[in-house]
């Protein structure tokens, strides 16, 4: 071929350039450059081979277009993040404690209490993450507060603290880095100066390899052309803009009504369930007992469909309609959660839900006082009154399983998060199997003996629900971020869940779903998803940060027991492990007099960068206008 001839030519005359004194050195340089390029190419090959599931995703892309595939690419990216979080928690927290910490049964906090021993090995208990699962490296409560463990002198509490903070920091860093990279690639942004030409030259999705998808794509291109032509004509008329605006305002109003209605329904149902609880739950059937759960699940299932119907009024480009849909579902979930908490709080006469952690904290302090008192009484009872309390008698050996335990709210919180994740996973899988697979089987095989055509009418095959799945993924990740400080096993569970999810959903999509009617290209940047993820990340890390800074850790469990605040482990490390001048420097650096000016400097630099980027954008627009006018002036 032509390029091969060119290459032979270059190779023949390459050496000739280096004639003269520097010939040998030049030849050597050329050889090194070639070797370096070959190495780079091999490395690229290796990197490409390492990317998992590439073929699966490409196949889905060819059948369903790039918008559905963008969900799977997002899933794969999340899997990468979770692998790193798993590596951190597993390698730096779980493994050292398992290998070098005191074994099971040596301390009260590491042993199943006598009362629970009988049922500790049951499958039901383990599935609920109690019993042996609770008293293991999987949860916060198992870890001992020894400053160093093992012959390596591994600083366990410090490692736990740093891994907790590090996972949050890493997540922030990678989400923001991905957003910045996407923003760079966006380039021109929403430029409409070449609307028709772009539709003409770039609308075909070359990854489509399936005739059915291709037919859908043709239809959508035709519609898109006709729409653009009509819009171009209509943009000269004024009326239709008003109609569209009116319809959009109406649609938003309907959506707000739906949100308000769902909030009120939850409030009403929670109040009713509290009334039932007061009168005794035995008098009521299954529905009354589970009313709140059922209502919340049903709302979560039907409101998004309602939003979908409302959005047909608005007449947006499908990509923009998807964003509105996502935003509304997000508002629905947050609103429901908030209403739920307010309805609960209202009973206790507290109007703000942010007081919830204070309530837990107060209850917990009271509980701790009671337990500590009980423990002193219990110890006294061991001596049976024969020896006075303040003496130096040798301690009596007690089996750790018999020692009374203090409350361990961190483990309880961790358990709740793990249970939530597991039940969420189960729900998703069962929904896929029933909602997609069984429906497809029903439509396929009962079509022969049914009065109307099942495949074209109701229910027909389902389409892949991009917005629902993306939101599910984002909320799930929020749970993981919130809970992984209290349950180091959460990233491991999530890695397993994402791995199986990828295979199950790839199979379900190819087997049970049909391509969407309007096949649209995903926008190259996923910044919308990233922005939501960033918001959820911020919300999820607030509780953990708050507990680290403000709430004293449980006195009887975990790596920080005995300290007044969890972050004291840092000052303890500075005291013991670093030279004294280091501690002094750190003390000066954490002086508010130094930190406040620093924060002020950061705020000012953000303002400055924002201002310069605005001015660059304006300069860009000016240049574009100039180009246009130069182009037009050629006519004159």
């Amino acid at each position: 071929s032509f390029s091969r001839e060119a290459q032979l030519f270059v190779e023949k005359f390459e050496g000739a350039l280096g004639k003269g004194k520097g010939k040998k050195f030049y030849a050597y340089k050329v050889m090194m450059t070639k070797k370096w390029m070959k190495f780079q190419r091999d490395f690229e090959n290796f990197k490409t081979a390492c990317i998992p599931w590439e073929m699966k995703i490409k196949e889905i892309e060819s059948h369903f277009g790039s918008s559905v595939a963008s969900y799977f690419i997002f899933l794969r990216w999340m899997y990468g993040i979770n692998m790193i979080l798993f590596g951190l928690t597993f390698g730096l927290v779980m493994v050292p404690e398992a290998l070098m910490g005191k074994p099971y049964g040596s301390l009260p906090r590491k042993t199943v209490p006598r009362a629970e021993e009988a049922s500790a090995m049951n499958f039901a208990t383990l599935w609920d993450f109690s019993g042996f699962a609770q008293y293991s490296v999987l949860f916060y409560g198992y870890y001992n507060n020894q400053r160093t463990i093992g012959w390596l002198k591994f600083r366990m509490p410090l490692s736990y603290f740093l891994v907790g903070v590090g996972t949050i920091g890493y997540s922030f860093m990678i989400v923001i880095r991905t957003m910045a990279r996407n923003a760079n690639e966006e380039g021109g942004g929403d430029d409409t100066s070449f609307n028709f030409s772009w539709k003409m030259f770039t609308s075909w999705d070359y990854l489509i390899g399936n005739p059915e998808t291709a037919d859908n794509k043709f239809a959508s291109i035709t519609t898109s052309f006709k729409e653009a032509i009509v819009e171009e004509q209509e943009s000269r008329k004024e009326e239709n803009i008003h109609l569209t605006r009116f319809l959009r305002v109406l649609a938003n109003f309907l959506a707000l009504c739906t949100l308000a209605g769902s909030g009120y329904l939850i409030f009403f149902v929670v109040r009713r369930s509290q009334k039932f609880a007061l009168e005794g739950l035995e008098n009521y059937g299954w529905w009354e007992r589970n009313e709140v759960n059922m209502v919340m699940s049903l709302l979560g299932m039907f409101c998004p469909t309602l939003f979908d119907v409302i959005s047909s009024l608005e007449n947006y480009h499908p990509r923009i309609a998807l964003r509105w849909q996502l935003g509304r579902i997000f508002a629905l979930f947050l609103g429901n959660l908030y209403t739920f908490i307010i309805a609960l709080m209202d009973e206790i006469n507290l109007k703000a839900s942010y007081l919830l952690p204070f309530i837990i904290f107060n209850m917990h302090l009271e509980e701790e006082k009671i337990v500590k008192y009980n423990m002193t009484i219990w110890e006294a009872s061991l001596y049976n009154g024969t020896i006075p309390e303040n003496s130096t008698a040798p301690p009596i050996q007690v089996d750790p399983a018999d020692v009374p335990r203090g409350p361990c709210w961190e483990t309880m919180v961790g358990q709740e998060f793990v249970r939530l994740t597991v039940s969420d996973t189960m729900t998703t899988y069962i929904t896929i199997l029933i909602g997609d697979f069984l429906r497809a089987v029903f439509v396929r095989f009962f079509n022969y003996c049914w009065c109307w055509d099942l495949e074209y009418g109701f229910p027909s095959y389902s389409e892949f629900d991009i917005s629902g799945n993306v939101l599910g993924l984002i909320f799930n990740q929020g749970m993981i971020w919130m809970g992984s400080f209290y349950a180091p096993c959460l990233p491991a569970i999530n890695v397993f869940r994402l791995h199986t999810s990828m295979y199950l959903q790839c199979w379900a999509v190819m087997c049970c779903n049909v391509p969407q009617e309007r096949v649209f290209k995903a926008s190259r940047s996923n910044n919308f998803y990233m922005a939501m993820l960033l918001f959820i990340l911020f919300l999820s890390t607030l509780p953990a940060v708050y507990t680290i800074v403000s709430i004293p850790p449980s006195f009887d469990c975990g790596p920080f027991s005995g300290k007044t605040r969890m972050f004291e482990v840092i000052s303890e490390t500075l005291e013991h492990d670093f030279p004294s001048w280091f501690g002094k420097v750190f003390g000066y650096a954490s002086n508010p007099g130094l930190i406040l000016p620093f924060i002020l400097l950061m705020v000012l630099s953000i303002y400055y960068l924002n201002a310069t980027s605005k001015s660059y954008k304006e300069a860009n627009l000016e240049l574009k206008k100039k180009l246009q006018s130069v182009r037009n002036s050629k006519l004159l």
Partner: protein
Amino acid sequence: TGEAEAARAAMGGSASLLPRELLREYQELTFLSKQEILLAYKRFSELLPKEERENACSARVPKSQILTLPELRANPFQHQICRVFSTSHNGDHSMSFEDFLDMLSVFSDSATSDVKSHYAFRIFDFDDDGTLDRKDLEKLVNCLTGQGEESRLSNAEMEQLIQNILEESDIDKDGTINLSEFQHVVSRSPDFARYGVLQ
């Protein structure tokens, strides 16, 4: 599992192997990675009848066979693509393995936007005269809107569409779009680089 099979082929399982020097050369001359070239080789030899698979590198595949590939079968520009990338001298648009690799290379993610827009221009230029005039644009629109009667645009709509396109892209106002005008328009599109790899 295409990659696993490609790896197995590379390990020396089957008789129809790509010689190592050729593989290295193709890596240097195209935008494709090693796995992609091996996969392309496998797909290409599957298009050949059994007897010719031994020397797949020098065989030519007739156009009708190439068009059985799923990505090309669904593609509205299938005939144009074969015409542009084929180097056959007797006008039958058959493709050799190197033509096939050229095609995949241009469509891959790593190809630069100049290369892509150059070839896109040639694909869209139906009468091969170096510019996109009204007739080319009409044929282009008809390809994109599919074969059915309902999906075609009416004459008035077609007129309007082509008028708008020429207004937007024809800078020197000569009624046709030449290569530099085309590259100017298309390089600013956010979707352009995402033509994707044919697997």
